[in-house]
């Protein structure tokens, strides 16, 4: 449209309709197009799973385990020191300052870590 310049939104729709030669059945303003693309829903996480993903604790951002630390003992310290997973790993600041007292290298001596009961 060169002589009639659409200004408001209805004019734009009229112009689009005209441009497409009026053959398109009036889509309910594009809703049918959206419906066709099935937007992938977010992956499912069992309750109690935390959702921060760099990577996650129970599951990675895709809902699986391929993105988790390999093995998790490799990164125990970032969770323990940085309080990255305060509900999953005893944190060094409050609950158990010497949780890893006898475990300098988690991958080797993880057996010395203990289950902690806060409080």
């Amino acid at each position, binding site marked *: *449209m060169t*002589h*009639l310049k659409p200004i*408001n*939104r*209805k004019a734009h729709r*009229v112009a689009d309709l*005209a441009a497409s030669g009026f053959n398109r059945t009036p889509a309910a303003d594009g809703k049918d197009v959206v419906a066709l693309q099935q937007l992938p829903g977010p992956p499912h996480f069992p309750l109690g799973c935390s959702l921060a993903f760099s990577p996650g604790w129970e599951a990675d951002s895709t809902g699986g385990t391929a993105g988790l630390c390999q093995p998790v003992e490799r990164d125990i310290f970032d969770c323990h020191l940085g309080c990255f997973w305060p509900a999953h790993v005893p944190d060094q600041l409050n609950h158990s300052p010497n949780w890893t007292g006898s475990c300098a290298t988690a991958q080797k001596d993880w057996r010395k870590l203990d289950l902690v009961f806060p409080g």
Partner: protein
Amino acid sequence: MLALRRREFHQFQGGGRDFLYLVPSAAVFELDQPGRAVLDLLSTDAPSEDTVVDRLSDRFPAPVVREAITELLNARAIGYEHLQDAPGPKQLPMMPFPLNTIVLNVTNQCNLACTYCYEYGEDKIVDTEHGQQSKFMSETTAREAVDLLLKESGRVAHMTFFGGETLLNFPVLKATIAYARGRAAEVGKTIDFSLTTNATLLRPDIIEFLAENEIGVTISMDGPQELQDKFRVFHNGSGSYDVVAPKIKELLRRHRTRPIGARVTLTSETIDVQRIYRHLTEEFGFWEVGFAPVTTSPQQQYAIGDSGFDRMLGQFRELGREFLEHAVENKHHGFSNVKDTLEEIHKGVSKAYPCGAGLGLLGVSTDGDVAVCHRFAGSDTHKLGTVKTGIDRAVQAEFLEQHHIADKTDCHTCWARPLCAGGCYHEAHVRYGTTRRPNLHYCEWIRGWTDTCLQIYGELAVRNPEFIARFDRDETRAEAVL
């Protein structure tokens, strides 16, 4: 050759350019010289395409004129004489139509006695003083209204508190908001609140509550002291200005979380739009001011006669121009009548009904009767059910069927019908005794005002298109919430 004839549109100028407002599609196009020339030719007779081409051959080359004609045909601005476009089918809204807003008359009592009040004056629909209506809405009824709203609404719902004087029943209002928030959270919906008040009962703790809970507030007020005190008086006749002025200023100072608007009722003796607007925005600091002519039967002495409408329209045009100058420099201006109409123009709204009453908006009386809107709350003739038993969908469908624009033949020739669609049901009821008649007494005024807004819209499209684009952003944000 096939004769060309004009279809329905309204031509206007803005910012030195020509525009077309097409009816009933409500599309706004800017017209260039060739297009304008073709339309001018068709204004008097019905020439064929070739005649038009060679009549304009001195001004424009043939291909340009042909192209202009095809574009005008596509936009339905012009059409072939023998191919009359059939009027659009009478499409009724799909049922059950989601409820968007519910207006609760939390009381039908008022501590003021405004002379022109439609709830108490001779034109009242429901006799609340001696009638068997309960004076205050109970908390249970209010809760049932919340449950009805959340049951029937989409993801976002709005609840407005009205009266009489809303704040006379503040305890129920407060409890209802808390309850509504909890219930909305449970069903995963969002709900927001607003209320209208005459500001006489504003107290610091109420203002604190309104700010804390982000409640939208509209103040009914008529302007400077002598205009306010002319009609908005207490039962003993004394003016309300001195009482409300300090309270409104305190409200505007303290309540920052939602924009606060004033609603001015214009009567035959108070038509001074400029001064009222100046007073309310500069003296008080209202964010927006909306004006509405008084709803009344013709024989009241405060009713605006024909000469009054002309004066009002002139003043509206002046304030409209001031709005335009502000909008061009992206500065805020509080004349809400223009802003609302501009938004509807920009969206290309083509209404089958004048407003949301009985459709997405319902009113609830103090006893829990659901009515078409808050002005009909409590009247049996316009009852659509009760909050307890829910909306009677059959009665609603019948109401919508009878009030559709397709049945208002007087409007079928008016170019402003996409935006007006016959005007307010209550005003038609007060004036003609039935809600089904269009408000023929203010057609000239509506067309004059719509034309003014279209001109403002056109000029803005030329001088500051960014201002108009803002309506798209609000729209997407609104849609995102929906």
